């Protein structure tokens, strides 16, 4: 195991983030605050309670997930796309690092950022609404698992994309809609029965539901199902990455 190599990549990625720490933190904090001002305070005041939880508190887990998904994908995809674009990837390809170590460095760094951001948003949200976390340990597990899974997904997108436009396509066209429709701001039990069935096809529903359960012990689907679905998605991403490195897809000609 080339630990120096993993550390070099990890450190490189985090220092890239720290160079632009201001904007990296400001953007999600500002957008979260806006959500709370609009949904929590302005609309939420008239919404009353959802499944026994005030609307302001109810949307906290969904908002964290929303940011976690988009930030994980954009950070991780950019992290691996940039060296491909600039050509500096030659060095990683010629180095004595295994595929696992490369992924550990890049995805580990991106997931670290995502988890820190998630915690930051939780802290920001606390300024707007009081909420309690019923199962803090499980909450952290969901946070880390989601961060890792979606950073892996982002890594795949960063390798697949052959330009910066494509880098944006999946997050904007797929992930954001799924995240919004995935019950971030409502319980899917509020939907008409047919749409409840359709919603179950959306993987984000399981993330948000499980994550929310760790806060309020209310869920659209069972926690076990949530964890299983996350495990499934994680496995799919790992398989895709294994294939990428085995074939050199988009990395080696």
């Amino acid at each position, binding site marked *: 195991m*080339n630990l120096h190599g993993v550390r070099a990549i990890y450190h490189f990625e985090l220092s890239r983030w720290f160079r632009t720490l201001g904007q990296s933190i400001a953007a999600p904090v500002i957008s979260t605050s806006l959500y709370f001002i609009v949904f929590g305070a302005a609309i939420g005041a008239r919404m009353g309670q959802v499944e026994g939880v005030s609307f302001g508190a109810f949307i906290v887990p969904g908002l964290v997930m929303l940011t976690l998904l988009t930030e994980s994908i954009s950070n991780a995809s950019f992290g691996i796309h940039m060296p491909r674009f600039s050509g500096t990837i030659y060095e990683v390809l010629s180095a004595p690092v295994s595929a696992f170590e490369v992924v550990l460095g890049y995805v580990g760094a991106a997931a670290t950022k995502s988890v820190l951001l998630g915690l930051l948003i939780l802290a920001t949200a606390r300024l707007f609404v009081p909420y309690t976390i019923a199962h803090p340990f499980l909450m952290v597990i969901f946070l880390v698992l989601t961060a890792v899974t979606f950073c892996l997904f982002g890594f795949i997108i960063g390798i697949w994309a052959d330009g910066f436009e494509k880098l944006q396509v999946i997050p904007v066209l797929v992930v954001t809609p799924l995240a919004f429709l995935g019950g971030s701001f409502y319980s899917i039990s509020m939907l008409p029965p047919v749409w409840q069935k359709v919603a179950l096809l959306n993987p984000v529903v399981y993330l948000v539901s499980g994550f929310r359960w760790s806060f309020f012990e209310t869920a659209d689907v069972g926690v076990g199902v949530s964890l299983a679905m996350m495990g499934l998605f994680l496995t799919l991403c790992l398989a895709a990455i294994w294939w990428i490195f085995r074939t050199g897809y988009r990395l080696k000609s």
Partner: protein
Amino acid sequence: MSSEVDPIISVRGLTKTYATGFQALRGIDLEIRRGEIFALLGPNGAGKSTLINIICGIVNPGTGTVLVDGHDVVRDYRLARQAIGLVPQELHTDMFERVRDTVAFSRGLFGRPPDTAFIERVLRQVSLWDKRDAKIMTLSGGMKRRVMLAKALAHEPRILFLDEPTAGVDVELRRGMWDLVRNLRAEGVTIILTTHYIEEAEEMADRIGIINHGEIRLVDDTAALLQKLGRRELRLQLQQPLAALPPALAGLPLQLAGDGNELVYAFDASGGGTGIAGLLAALQAQGIEFRDLATRESSLEDIFVGLLREGARS
């Protein structure tokens, strides 16, 4: 090609066909000796970068094997790659990183523990120590190239690949690069460089390999190749153009040139007999007449061009 006793790099039957269907390497056999400076000489598109990039792990090999210090570059890639430093042909650097950070990154990436004293030594070696805290994007092209060299040296490799190290580099920098390469060789580093400048190969290399159309045409000591500089040519202006060499002359070092109006005979001026008398007799027997003749020394350039022509014909 004779087999080396203990080659540091050994390439056997290496082929490469790109996804486009283009075959860039057609069965390369090559051995690099420990501690030598080896120049891979060939025109653009010959396959030099492809060969280097396969050895270094950037391009997937087709068929064949590459051993680096006895380690297969695919199976034992860790051990093989640890030994290698690479400066690729194109200039690829980060923009916002500081010089010393990017060199330290390379060292770590190749599995070496941090060593600030060694990083300083490398940066001094490439005359970048006073730029150690500069962001890479503020450096000139020549400096960026030296940053890449420092990165390649950061993990103390025993083999250094330089893919066209002096392309687009001014004369002074080129001299500096050559001095540095010689110093590295003196420290025991094996150096493989590619170039399409004959002078560069001639000046730098212990041995030269000539590559074209994905095939190694010739590998020889630079001294031996230079001796061929001592070869001379007899050029005969013919009375009547020839469509082809008569079969009776096939055994002689003869070539037809100038649309068949000229016969070029190569001979070794340093040896005893030149064979010119025999040639003239053979020509007479064939009824080939000439109106003028001249001798001249052939240059390495001519040898090179001749080889490439041969390659193009075959």
